[in-house]
């Protein structure tokens, strides 16, 4: 539970004002700083094509991060999103290979994602076991299910719906970037401008007092994890579209990338503070970093060192600034 101080102005404006006002400069500052460094280091960085490439490359993790923002803002965590993404991807690809039209396959993937999310939420809410442990278990469970469904092999060949979503262009902009924008806008509106979103932030801030205000905490938690599951399904749609296959071994460690993106974006791990745009920026920061390292052809071992160092710097930025 995070302790937050409420200013006099916020108290006048009420509950809504306080949570809607949260802004974190950490992510935008880090993104700008990193981009400046990369454009100086490589002449290929600051071209339209490359920047769009970064958005496309980061889209899958960014969509996962949008869902993760809800869960973390609500005081929980979901480690199973990578595996759920793989399972949804396998389901979608298998359906398409059996002749099912693309959009129905996508609906099925959403159902699978929501069900697995709701399962997580119900377990966590009902049994009162720490989310870390439960989703660690479903991480394994869902991975196993994905592998069993696909018999360990990737399922190839998706139809034009997926191909359009993963590889198409809308007015010159790659569809994955547009898709990400749509998901981010929807996420932001729900988190900051609906009662549901405000209850979420309040839940992460102080669960006891949220319960006392009459919020059905059980239902709220289940809903949060369902959102994460749905975002995992959407990420799977993008993944399958880009790769033209449903891969049961996909998404390993993606949950860690999503969590990194969320934390870099300024959402507190303890809950109570969160912004969807921050998480998207966080994912873009990771994307810029990875892209820069590729453009500069940095040798493999150094890449791991660089990524870790810069992530730590990006996250400590705001803490150091506040202290000074």
């Amino acid at each position: 539970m995070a302790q937050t101080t409420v200013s006099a102005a916020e108290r006048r404006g009420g509950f809504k004002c306080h949570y809607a006002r949260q802004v974190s400069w950490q992510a935008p500052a880090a993104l700008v700083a990193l981009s400046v460094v990369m454009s100086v280091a490589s002449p290929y960085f600051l071209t339209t094509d490359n920047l769009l490439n970064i958005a496309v490359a980061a889209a899958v993790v960014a969509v996962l991060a949008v869902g993760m923002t809800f869960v973390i803002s609500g005081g929980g965590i979901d480690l199973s999103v990578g595996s759920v993404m793989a399972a949804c991807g396998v389901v979608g690809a298998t359906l398409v290979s059996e002749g099912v039209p693309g959009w129905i396959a996508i609906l099925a993937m959403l159902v699978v994602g929501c069900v697995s999310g709701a399962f997580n939420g119900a377990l966590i809410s009902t049994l009162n076991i720490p989310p870390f442990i439960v989703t660690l278990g479903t991480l394994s469970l869902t991975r196993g299910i994905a592998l069993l469904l696909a018999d360990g092999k990737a399922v190839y060949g998706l139809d034009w719906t997926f191909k359009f979503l993963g590889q198409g262009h809308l007015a010159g902009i790659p569809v994955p970037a547009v898709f990400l924008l749509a998901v981010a806008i929807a996420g932001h509106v729900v988190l900051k401008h609906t009662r549901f979103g405000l209850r979420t932030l309040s839940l992460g801030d102080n669960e006891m007092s949220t319960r006392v205000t009459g919020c059905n905490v059980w239902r709220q938690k289940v809903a949060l994890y369902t959102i994460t599951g749905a975002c995992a399904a959407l990420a799977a749609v993008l993944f399958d579209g880009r790769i033209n296959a449903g891969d049961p071994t996909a998404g390993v460690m993606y949950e860690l990338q999503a969590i990194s993106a969320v934390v870099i974006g300024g959402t507190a791990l303890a809950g109570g503070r969160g912004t969807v745009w921050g998480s998207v920026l966080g994912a873009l920061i990771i994307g810029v970093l990875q892209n820069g390292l590729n453009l500069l052809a940095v040798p493999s071992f150094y890449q791991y060192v660089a990524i870790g160092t810069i992530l730590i710097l990006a996250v400590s930025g705001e803490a150091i600034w506040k202290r000074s």
Partner: protein
Amino acid sequence: MRGSLSAALALAAISSCLSVVGARGAEGDVAVIMKTLSNPYWGAMGAGVEEAAKKASVKYSIQDAPNESDLAAQLDSCQNLLTRGPKVLIAAAITPVNLLPCFKDANAKGIPVIDLDNQLDPKTTEAEGVKIAFAIGSNNRDLGEKAAEYLASKTTTGKVLIIEGIAGNPAGTARRDGFREKLAQIAPKMSVVAVLPGDWDRLKAANIANDTLQTTPDLVAIYAANDTMALGAVEALNTAGRKANVIVIGTDGNTDAVKAVKAGALDATVAQMPFLVGSQAVEQALKGGQVPGGKIVVPTLLLTKSVLDQNTDPLIQYLR
């Protein structure tokens, strides 16, 4: 607190029961420990082991690790297999050293140990006092070299991208070095613009291909240390509309890659014969006796559309 603790225990009990029900393996004379069966390459090797064991009417049990990086879990699985008193232990260790404690125990029990797919380093194994009956596998450097020869046969100038596996992985390193050194030898005018780690991940390889096209729009070829990454790179090239200008070569020759080569989507892949490695390992293990040089080298095969269409090479039947 008590309520949630017992609930957690119940959950753990149920899931471990379920995992046992789903797990393979019965009491076996031939014990096989693989890296992970979720990679089609290792799956094919497992299939080869099963077929050879069935032919010889010998019982077998196969265990694997949950993923290609869980060293401790693989060691545990290995020890579990040993407790059943197998006749022979065939193992594909994730690293050259993580299974050595298990092999020592096997030596002590008089159970012959076979190095599946050349995962061990002979110097380290000897230094630890571990005896290996023989090692069987294909030569990873050879895989890289065959790919370089194919590329040189198509073109002798231009820029090349190498996508390697997880940095530091011995198989990936051997393939990368084999490719690079052979290419420098037979096509010195070609230049390698970058060697980037694809981590055996399809999406990462696609992103690497995309990014490299930014710096090198006139890229001529991509060599990937396995098929999963090669196919990821192919999709990225397709999206960018650049596939026609770039030759993509993979490694492994798994089912997806074979289909892709036949369809013309992937230019070539250097196939290992995991099925053959698995079945020959079991055959030789059951035969017993000395193996000349302590090594069996299983051939590899360069697969191109013409090779697959002609279908005359006897090794093709072992593709899975």
